[in-house]
């Protein structure tokens, strides 16, 4: 009898845990509000293809000197890097930030930020402008 009760308790416990995990998974990753009017592509398109856009743009920029802002990583970061309470930018690869939250959710490792800047440069001219950079 005791054994049955314990088993039932454990079962209900694991069921509860399972539900909690499902609920958490369903809520999805949270991304800080981006600046700018709208993204350069529809959200669905970006979710599926942003890596292809970035890869295409990186070759165009590096090999052919095409320096438009659309699909550039610098462009993404300029809109998507959030500012903390101290008024400073939070790196986009910090937990719960634009890049990292989704990548943690999908368990995909990013290798962009061992080389690329994770915050926009304060006071620097935005990519694509003719100003001093």
């Amino acid at each position, binding site marked *: 009898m005791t054994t049955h009760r314990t088993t039932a308790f454990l079962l209900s416990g694991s069921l509860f845990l399972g539900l909690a995990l499902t609920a958490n998974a369903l809520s999805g990753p949270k991304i800080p509000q981006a600046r700018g009017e709208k993204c350069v592509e529809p959200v669905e398109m970006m979710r599926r293809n942003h890596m292809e856009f970035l890869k295409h743009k*990186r070759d*165009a920029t*590096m*090999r*052919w*000197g*095409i*320096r*438009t*802002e659309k699909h550039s990583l*610098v462009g993404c*970061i300029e809109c998507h890097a959030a500012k903390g309470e101290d008024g400073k930018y939070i790196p986009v690869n910090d937990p719960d930030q634009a890049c990292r939250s989704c990548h943690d959710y999908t368990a995909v490792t990013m290798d962009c930020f*061992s*080389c*690329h*800047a994770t915050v*926009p*440069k304060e006071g*620097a001219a935005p*990519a*694509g402008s*003719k100003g*001093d*950079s």
Partner: protein
Amino acid sequence: MSTTKRPDNRGRRRFLTAAGGVTAVATIAPGVRLIQRVLAKEDDQAVSSAVRWGMLINTNKCATGCNDCVTACNSEHGLRDTGRPDTDPQWIRKVKLVDDQTGKETSLPMMCQHCEKPPCADVCPTGASFRRTDGVVLVDKHICIGCRYCMMACPYKARSFVHETLTDQRPWSPRGKGTVEACTFCVHRVDRGQQPACVEACAGADHGALVFGNLNDPKSEISKRAKAVSSRQIRADLDLNTGVRYEGV
């Protein structure tokens, strides 16, 4: 691509080019002309072989002990002093030459010579080292495996390997551990009609030892000067046709 794009915009582009030229000349100290001719490349235009970027270095004007070009380069690209000079990357270094016979000392900046036939690109096993069609030699760090074969092949010792994890890189100059890097001729600036950081610093310090421009344009300041004065390529015997030339050595 460049000839067919936006034909209706040409008048405006010419106007902007002229205006840019005027601004550049007006803001620089007398006798120093920072930009001879602003090349109007739109951001969406690809670079072309009509341009060959080059630099002419007047060692007579290059002061011994002056390090302004190196400092400007380090600051522009986020190269920091870690206190470990054996492994710290350097994109420009000052070299001192002493004539054994006369004792005459010459100081000059040495960096990637942006060869027309770059040995680094020849030996690269992955295609990461490449020459852009406008003559700038770069490393594609996305496919660089850090083998350092290019560093062995470069006769100018111009390349560095990044040994340590980096943080807080410049958005316009991605750099990372495990890849090889070198002077980029500041392509991020040049693509927008600006001068490389070292050239700007040298002109700003009133030395004017560095002239940067398009070697393919006979009207550019660099072409006129290269035609008028005697200059040479370092290790011209290797027949690499370097984009960087030196006067006074």
